[in-house]
């Protein structure tokens, strides 16, 4: 770990002001990912701006949604009664991630911006375009069982490791951002990028911009939502794949609306729009769920070790939707 300066921001304005004066500074939430990466010399900021004192509350919005401060801890969010009742997919996604100790430290903002667990990203002796653009990607022909099957590029096949973000994407969460140029919002599905030729750029955030809050729009049928994570051990393992879903089934068994997102399959939390499109207005049954999953995975590409993810994703999507349909009956 290199030497760095540390300052603690009292409020958003101060955090942004600090960041403005130190272009290579990093905002620090719980530090559960950033500090690890600094220890590995992967992240080398000269300054850390602790924002954990900023935006620590969850409050209702005018339209019946929730506004979640970026420094709310993962534990605080997952155990919030309103979240558990209105957005169970989010609570369950968070609880499926990391460990109790880590969730007690980790913040919403930090969770969104956590970096991939690609083995070659973590090993600074390996070629990694994400760390050093132009060096290549050792994962493409290497150990890549955890890697992306959707949206990967010849430059990078890393996956986004967050469980929480999969739920946020399914819920169409809105990211509130503030920088020296002012405030703006972005749909969470637009925040993370696919790797393309520039895998070093993981989000649409500009230098010095801070995520201040996440807004969950009102979504009544999200009460019927779920998160399912498939992994190599029962706890404390990153998703091989995961599915976040909310399903609205009418009295006659038709899909009125559906939200589907996937984790562990791409460089970003993956909104399964094609599958949603296939399902809307169709009968809620196994065949249609499977057809929707097939549609979403049409473009999936397997690397040496991760081909199993394609069928695994399809089956898990189908099973999650079946569960939701069954509990709706």
């Amino acid at each position, binding site marked *: *770990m*290199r*030497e760095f300066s540390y300052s603690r921001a009292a409020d958003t304005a101060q955090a942004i002001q600090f960041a403005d004066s130190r272009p290579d500074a990093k905002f620090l939430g719980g530090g559960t990912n950033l500090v690890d990466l600094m*220890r590995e*010399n992967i992240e080398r900021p000269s300054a850390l701006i602790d924002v954990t004192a900023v935006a620590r509350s969850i409050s209702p919005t005018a339209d019946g949604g929730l506004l979640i401060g970026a420094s709310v801890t993962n534990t605080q969010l997952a155990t919030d009664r309103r979240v558990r009742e209105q957005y169970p997919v989010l609570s369950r996604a968070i609880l499926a991630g990391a460990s109790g100790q880590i969730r007690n430290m980790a913040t919403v903002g930090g969770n969104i911006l956590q970096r991939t*667990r690609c*083995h*070659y990203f*973590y*090993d600074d*002796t*390996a070629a990694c375009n994400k760390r050093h653009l132009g060096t290549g990607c*050792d994962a493409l*022909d*290497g*150990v890549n*069982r955890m890697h992306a099957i959707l949206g990967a590029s010849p430059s990078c096949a890393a996956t986004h490791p967050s469980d929480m973000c999969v739920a946020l994407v399914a819920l169409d969460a809105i990211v509130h951002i503030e920088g020296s140029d002012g405030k703006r919002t972005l749909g969470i599905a637009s925040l993370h990028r696919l790797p393309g030729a520039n895998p070093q750029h993981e989000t649409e955030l500009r230098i010095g911009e801070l995520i201040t809050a996440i807004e969950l729009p009102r979504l009544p049928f999200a009460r019927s939502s779920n998160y399912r994570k*498939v*992994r*190599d*051990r*029962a*706890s*404390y*393992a*990153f998703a*091989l794949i995961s599915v976040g879903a909310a399903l609205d089934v009418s009295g006659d068994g038709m899909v009125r609306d559906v939200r589907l997102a996937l984790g562990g399959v791409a460089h970003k939390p993956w909104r399964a729009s094609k599958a949603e499109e296939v399902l809307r207005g169709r009968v*809620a*049954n*196994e*065949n249609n769920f499977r057809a929707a999953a097939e549609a979403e995975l049409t473009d999936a590409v397997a690397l040496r070790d991760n081909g*199993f993810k394609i*069928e*695994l994703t399809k*089956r*898990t999507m*189908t*099973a999650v939707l*079946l*569960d939701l*349909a*069954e509990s709706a*009956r």
Partner: protein
Amino acid sequence: MTIVDIVKTALRYVPDVLLPGVTPVPFKKKHGRIGEPLSRIDGALKVRGQARFAAEVPMDGLLYAALVHSTIPRGRIATIDTSAAEVAPGVALVMTYRNAPKMKAPQAFLEGSGVAGSNLPVMQDDTIHWNGEAVAVVLAETQEQADQATSLVSVTYSTDVAVTSFDLAKQRARHPDTVLGEAAVVKSGDVEKALVAARHRVDEVYQTPRYSHNAIELHVATVRWDGDTLVLHDATQMVNGTASTVADVFGIKAEHVRVVSPFVGGGFGGKTLWSHQILAAAAAKVAQRPVKLVLSREAVYRLVGGRTLTEQRVALGANEDGTLAALIHTGIAATTAHNSCPEQFTFPARHLYAASNFRLEQKIAEMDMVANTFMRAPGESVGTFALECAIDELSERMIIDPIELRRRLEPTKDPTSGHAFSSRHLSKAYIDGAAKFGWSKRCVQPCAQRDGEWLIGMGVATATYPYYRMPGVRARIRLDAKGHATIATAGHEMGMGTATVQVQHAADRLGLPLDQVTFKYGDSALPAGAMAGGSAQTASTLAAVAAAVEALMSKMLKLAGNDSPLAGLKVADVVARDGGLSHARDTGRFETYVSILARAKRDLVEAEEAGPPPLEFMKYSMHSYGAQFAEVGVNAVTGEVRVRRMLGSFDCGRILNPKTATSQFRGGIIMGIGLALTEETLFDERTGRIMNPSLAEYHVPVHLDVPEIDVIWTDIPDPHSPLGARGIGEIGITGIGAAIANAVHNATGVRVRSLPITLDKILPHILEHSLSTAEGLR
């Protein structure tokens, strides 16, 4: 035949009474503390944080060390620039091959008395032998400064062609000289012919991956030179071997190296002598200050070997009555040119089953990697996976219960050595285990039981591990004027309850209450002790303590003299009880130790003895056994495997402490769950680099992976081992891989012959199973 084989064969014809060790020192106590479920005597210390581990030893002027690792598997250091690191804040020394002291290469295991994991010279020239080898040691005033400065050392390499692909290495596979002293090939009859002619056949290849050591306590060396004497606070399973091997490296006398290791936070075969202790001592010598080197978790993966990968063939040819006409167990383990650790996976097949014809053969394939090493039941753990899966496959083909098949294969004498068994009650372990586990509820047909999304199955496999006892183990007993006994031997406490059981034993043997006995261990300055390996430390130490007690009693009787009620008695006539000695039958003839010493005006009496040579396991086939039962659920949607419950039924002689024993067995079983389902060291065959050197990415089982584990035992004493006990540290992990794999087959009909059993190996074969039991939605 190896020399060991010849000795063993000769001993078969020598009567027991002529062989020391074969008949243990009799134990007259009927109702002592042995066999009681005593809590660990070091428990309170550990809970309070008062047990001081090697990384916690304070020293004045201590420097903290951090390492730079090589990034190529084979070649030379072309340039190494340490100038930036040398001037970094707090840095006291950057040591590389250019300024490291001249040191001899350490002797590896099975070379003389060496105990090093590898015999490579440590930091003596620019040669790189594996990806991750230490190329520089940075010493600084704080750990953070040392860590930071390692990033300022820049190294370039010239690369040589390396063998980092197992397929390539296999092409040059060869027989090792021996497999831990035994022959690499053991055969009888024309086994291939018998196999072809057999009525029922199984012939399969089984693969097991690399596994890395992940003891909770990281490897550490806190070292200080006092003139020419080195004090090494180590986390080790072998204080004596480490002292002598390190002494040889530095060209000093063995008594000039003192290795201290009173507490070890898990060993499992990995806490031996690796390069880090030597590097710490060398750096301390150059810097002329004490040094603490705590390996990072990553450094443990890079510098400390693990269980190697194997590829094993098991072929079984059975007659109609279920007896074996042919038993073939052959295979290859990856190893290096710098160690002798061939992963003895054929050992179970040498002793478990009767077969008319057999061929048991091991080869090694050398790779450029960190030297592989012992890990809990090396050989038997992965060997039982292959063998016991094959037995299960045979039982399926023969449509016979796998336990019944094993009963029919039960030999009357050791099938390869021809020796008599000292004590073998595997069938009883099976009968007891099956009853307790509810084996009769198992559906014979796979895929017959389902619980929601979960396909349920049961599996069983045999556990086995040899009995060993170390030669040359000594114990000293000092009995003071207050009647307090202190036992001293350079043994080890890695959390398994060594000290507790030894106190129980010594208290009983001396007729003292537990609190009148102290057990000193973990220090090479004490009489030579047993290394904590081969599940042999307890029995080895018991034999030494028993011998020392005999010697002490003899001295006490002499001291007692003619004025004592004990006058004229010999050791064989007396028993120890109530803090003194008594005639065995005439209980009125009794005198306390305190009284004897007081009359003799002595402050203490001391005796030191070695146990007899361990000839018992040369003359008899001595092994522990067990039946491992597993019930698993396999998710019909995802192929995820979760163990629902387990039971281990063991035949390990007399159980000395049911509480610590249960923990040992259970710990082994949990480690077996990791071996079977979750653990794998990811090795990039292009670079020879380990890619998941962290507890986040290397999956040891977590609490949620571990179900209820029941443990039972036969408790039948072995007539030829001290106290009738055989070791229990390693057997728990054996058979687990197969029991789980067999349960997965029973649940799904899928045979996974490659560990770990991850969902991707199951999923393609269970696609016909419906996702849901909700009929209305299909």
